[in-house]
């Protein structure tokens, strides 16, 4: 029987084939290899859906794990096996659909954004997209931490290549370098984490009875024979360290503070790339990774609290910067950082489902917003400054309608998808935060970010689409075809409805069963389920839900607060910017605005670090050339100097040699004579 799971490798390989086709044959093909990419990603999408449906059909544990390839094996009794395998459970199946869906839509959109705009180097572009999609899918299906790390790095490479797509300009290559380097810095910790996991557990499998989260749980439960901790640390302490090390990679890839600075710069890449990589998928890799190995984090509450705090802080911190940006993509970039902060907050708050839920809705509405921004950018002849736009809503109704849907979702307005997921995050952070001050801090910051999010989102919408056109191009925007409108419409619909798959608040209020996503995610294999994680958290993390009054009142307070704040932010933006001739109100903030506009001088700080490193390198070079090589050359000069003196003896005159010979002989004879007593 042909089972869907046999085709899981094909999901990864199809885009890889499209990469090869685009790279080697792209220039001989119509549309520069785009069609191969569309066919491959669409094929992967269909296969992913099939896999996800098959998973629904599995009774009992919904999990499929298979080792496909052994990369390296040690020797001995219990050798380390470094393998590649696939792990399909509800989480990865969901992620597969998200990635393949957005990849397909972005490929289609690229026809409008790249091909129709007459870009050169299209085979390179589509090869990059294909390789990215393949690597990302490989990461999603990875069944162990090493494989995950490997594909994690590969998506970083693709991000580098695609950000730097316009390599003839000066900006994009620099941004690409920064993106790779900053994420590399995070990956450094991640790699230590991977190595530490191997050294500690002897395996890096995510699932199964011999997987490292399971072994970690056993160790925490008291059976320390299964692990080798380092420096004589307690298992919990050591796992916290390892968890934080892996978190380094997560912070880098998901653009969390303090490694978020690369993401706004990455907007130098083509807009479809921003939508695919820097909004919906690659940036989600960090969050997905934590969700993937959640069983491991669940036993180290300290790591989780730190995750929550970083997340909450990033959510607020990035949102404030989004308020003052002039370029449409910059606003979206900071909003992306901020939204991933929410997901981290959810993970830290123990709410694995809320994080995954927000990951999904965010993927849809943020990809939508980026593609919408792309459409606006096409219309504006690649001018991204919102202050040159205005009044576009009448000229591009499809874009406006979908962009508005995405914005409402991002702002968290009922009943758009973002409302459901963000509300769930804040609710969970709140109830667990009642018993944990660090979490409560995260919740407060997340809550503060809500009105700011609504404000900057609608500032963007009003500046772009409302009011009077503020430039010649805004009066006569460039048109575009179905390949732009199609993907926008699909995502627009999803941005509206995707939230309905997990209406937990409604369920709690009415009792109707509406938490489909929660149930789906709870049906995975043993140790990989939502309820399993909750049990772990309750047992080892001391996570306990608090309530204000009853559960329903708590729910209403949390939801009411976040919705009320979001609406407030929206109304402020409406008041200030929904006018024919808006002005830069943010300029009134004075110095605060400068600080925000310059991103809290975070970039300057990192540039400063980079320059200091180069200065240290220059000093090291001086030291090397002067001292170390100086010693070498010194030794050589000493011997050369000695030789130069010694060779003066060699006059070349036979007379001198003969004299020396004679003198020598005489001296020898005298010496013999004196010692031998000849003269006595």
């Amino acid at each position, binding site marked *: 029987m042909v089972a869907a799971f046999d085709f899981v490798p094909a999901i990864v390989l199809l885009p890889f084939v499209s990469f090869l086709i685009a790279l080697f044959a792209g220039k001989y093909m119509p549309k520069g290899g785009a069609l191969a990419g569309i066919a491959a990603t669409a094929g992967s999408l269909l296969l992913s859906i099939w896999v996800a449906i098959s998973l629904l059909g599995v009774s009992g544990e919904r999990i499929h794990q298979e080792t496909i390839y*052994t*990369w*390296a*094996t*040690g*020797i*001995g009794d219990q050798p*380390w096996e470094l393998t590649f395998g696939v792990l399909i459970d509800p989480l990865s199946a969901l992620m597969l659909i998200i990635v393949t869906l957005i990849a397909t839509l972005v490929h289609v959109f690229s026809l409008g954004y790249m091909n129709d705009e007459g870009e050169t180097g299209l085979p390179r572009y589509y090869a990059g997209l294909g390789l990215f999609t393949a690597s990302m899918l490989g990461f999603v299906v990875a069944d162990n931490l*090493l494989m995950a*790390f*490997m*594909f994690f*790095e*590969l998506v970083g*490479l693709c991000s580098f290549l695609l950000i*730097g797509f316009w*390599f*003839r*300009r*000066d900006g*994009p*290559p*620099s941004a*690409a*370098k920064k993106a*790779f*380097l900053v994420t*590399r*810095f995070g*990956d*450094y910790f991640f*790699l*230590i984490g991977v*190595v*530490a996991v*191997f*050294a*500690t557990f002897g395996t890096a499998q995510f699932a199964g009875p011999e997987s490292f989260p399971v072994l970690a749980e056993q160790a925490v439960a008291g059976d320390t024979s299964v692990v*080798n901790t*380092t*420096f004589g640390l307690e298992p919990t302490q050591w796992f916290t360290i390892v968890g934080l090390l892996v978190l380094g990679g997560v912070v880098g890839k998901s653009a969390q503070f303090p490694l978020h600075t690369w993401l706004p710069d990455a907007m130098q890449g083509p807009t479809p790339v921003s939508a695919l990589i820097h909004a919906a998928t690659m940036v989600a890799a960090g969050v997905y990774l934590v969700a993937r190995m959640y069983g491991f984090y669940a036993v180290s509450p300290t790591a989780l609290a730190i995750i929550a705090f970083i997340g909450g802080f990033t959510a607020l911190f990035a949102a404030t910067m989004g308020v003052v940006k002039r370029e449409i993509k910059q606003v979206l970039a900071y909003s992306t950082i901020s939204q991933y902060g929410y997901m981290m907050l959810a993970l830290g708050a123990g709410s694995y489902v809320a994080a995954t839920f927000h990951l999904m809705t965010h993927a849809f509405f943020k990809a939508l917003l980026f593609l919408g921004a792309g459409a606006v950018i096409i219309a504006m002849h690649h001018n991204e400054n919102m202050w040159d736009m205005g009044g576009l809503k009448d000229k591009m109704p499809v874009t406006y309608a979908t962009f508005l849907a995405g914005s409402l979702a991002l702002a968290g307005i009922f009943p758009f998808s973002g409302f459901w997921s963000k509300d769930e995050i804040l609710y969970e952070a709140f109830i667990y935060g009642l018993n944990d001050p660090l979490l409560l801090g995260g919740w407060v910051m997340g809550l503060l970010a809500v009105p700011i999010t609504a404000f900057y989102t609608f500032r963007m919408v009003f500046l772009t689409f409302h009011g009077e056109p503020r430039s010649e191009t805004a009066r006569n925007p460039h048109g575009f075809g179905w390949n732009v409108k199609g993907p926008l419409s699909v995502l627009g619909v999803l941005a509206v409805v995707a939230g309905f798959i997990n209406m937990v608040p409604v369920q709690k209020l009415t009792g109707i069963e509406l938490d489909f996503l929660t149930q789906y995610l709870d049906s995975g294999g043993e140790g990989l389920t939502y309820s399993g994680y909750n049990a772990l958290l309750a047992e080892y993390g001391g996570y306990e839900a608090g309530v204000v009054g009853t559960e329903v009142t708590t729910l209403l307070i949390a939801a009411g607060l976040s919705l009320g704040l979001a609406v407030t932010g929206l109304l402020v933006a409406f008041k200030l910017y929904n006018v024919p001739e808006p002005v830069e109100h943010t300029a009134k903030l004075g110095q605060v605005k400068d600080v925000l506009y310059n991103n809290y001088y975070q970039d300057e700080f990192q540039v400063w670090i*980079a320059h200091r*490193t*180069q200065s*240290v*390198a*220059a000093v*090291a*070079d001086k030291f*090397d050339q002067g001292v*170390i*090589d100086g010693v*070498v050359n010194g030794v*050589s000069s000493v011997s050369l100097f000695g030789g130069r003196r010694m060779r003066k003896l060699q006059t070349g005159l036979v007379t001198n040699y003969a004299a020396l010979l004679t003198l020598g002989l005489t001296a020898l004879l005298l010496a013999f004579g004196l010692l031998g007593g000849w003269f006595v």
Partner: protein
Amino acid sequence: MIIEALIAFTFAAALLVFAVPNKYAGKVAFGLSLVPVIGSLYMWSLFESGGNALTGGDIAFETIIPWVEIAGIQVQWFVGVDGISLPLVVLTTFLTSLAIVSAWTPIKERQSQFYGLMLFMEANLLGVFMALDFFLWFIFWEAVLVPMYFLIGVWGGPRRKYAAIKFFVYTNVASLVMFIGFMALVFGLNVETFGLPEITQALANDQLGTWFGIAPDTLKLIAFLALFVGFAVKVPVVPVHTWLPDAHVEAPTPVSVMLAGVLLKMGTYALLRFNFTMLPEQASLLAVPIAIIAVVSVIYGAMLALAQTDLKRIVAYSSVSSMGYVILGLIAFTEFGVGGATFQMVAHGLISGLMFMSVGVIYNATHTRIVSDMSGLADRMPVAVGILIAGAFAYMGLPLMAGFAGEFFIFAGSFGSTFLPYAPIFTALAMFGIVIVAGYLLLAMQKTLFGEYRLETDYEVTAAPLHDVAPMAVLLLAIIALGVAPWVFLDMIFDAVAPILANGGGL
């Protein structure tokens, strides 16, 4: 007999190429160099892994012929391979062929002598990796220097004489120290031959007596230090590395390829064969200082690379950095550590070879190697630049390429090492090299390859010719193949490494 045939053929090929007219020398040398490639691949196909040659495992393709007697100890023609040397033999033949092709463009005079010396060097390198008698090995070891000296000194850049003499004297003095140290050990051992297996096993059986009143343990320590110094120069590690950048900068591209790709591996190979196989207890004693040297080499070498403005110096210093990983893997003394170090020797040979070829292709086109003189080269030579970028990422340790495999094995092996105190800290420190390497390579790439094309030349910079790009493409394929399937070498390496670890007290 196949080893004799391989070495003899390569020597004969070298002589033949000396006699070929300059015009045809490159093509003839390439054709002849394919024979050792096929020969080594044939050896690989016949090879059956069976332990470590030195500790009493199977020695494949073994030949022993008594030669002369020195001070009552028999010198033999004793050759053979095991899982550690075979990958390096394959690397040597493979890289020599490609280096010869990459020489077609830059080498414009005295071609027959150039290619003859390249083949002569190849023959000696094969001897180094396959000889199992100390004297024989030492002859090959020293004989490698001679062609290298001429290759740098005759075909090199403006300061070629300085670089060639520095290289020759530095490494030769080091060899002398090593030789004396080893001789002390051998004379104290009371063995009948200079065969390395016999010496290793005698040492393992505690046959070392006092020699000139020096106690066995002191003697071993002295020998270990002398050997370490001798090999460290060859590797090279900080602080005895300064000959390397000079040699690389002055050497022509194909010679740099050989120097970084194979010659540096002689040092690490010998460290593994002598220091770590024969004297593991002394290695354990000196584990912390050696690990410090390794970490300093990694970080300091990478920092130096960051400060350079010459592309070739960047790659040269990064070799110092990469070789630091190998030392770390060796001193970790675990299966993955030592095995990964051996794997990294091959991986780094391929990757640094590719990097030097890429820099050479850029130099051929632009006649400069200074980073700030270039910009936007990707516009003019897309294929070569594409391969260069791939090679740079391989150097940074991108997964599914050979560099990552080697580095990951080393890190994974060293992190949990019980042989090396504070292993996790040393490992974590050394791993920071992967960030710095990304920093300097990305910076150099951004400045030279990307941005607007602004180079002012009185001729048109065009895409590189096929015979320049083809060896790069072949190397890239090999790097990817090894990264995807490291087991092709790793299995036999592990087989040969395991007895060493057992020899060191079952660690």
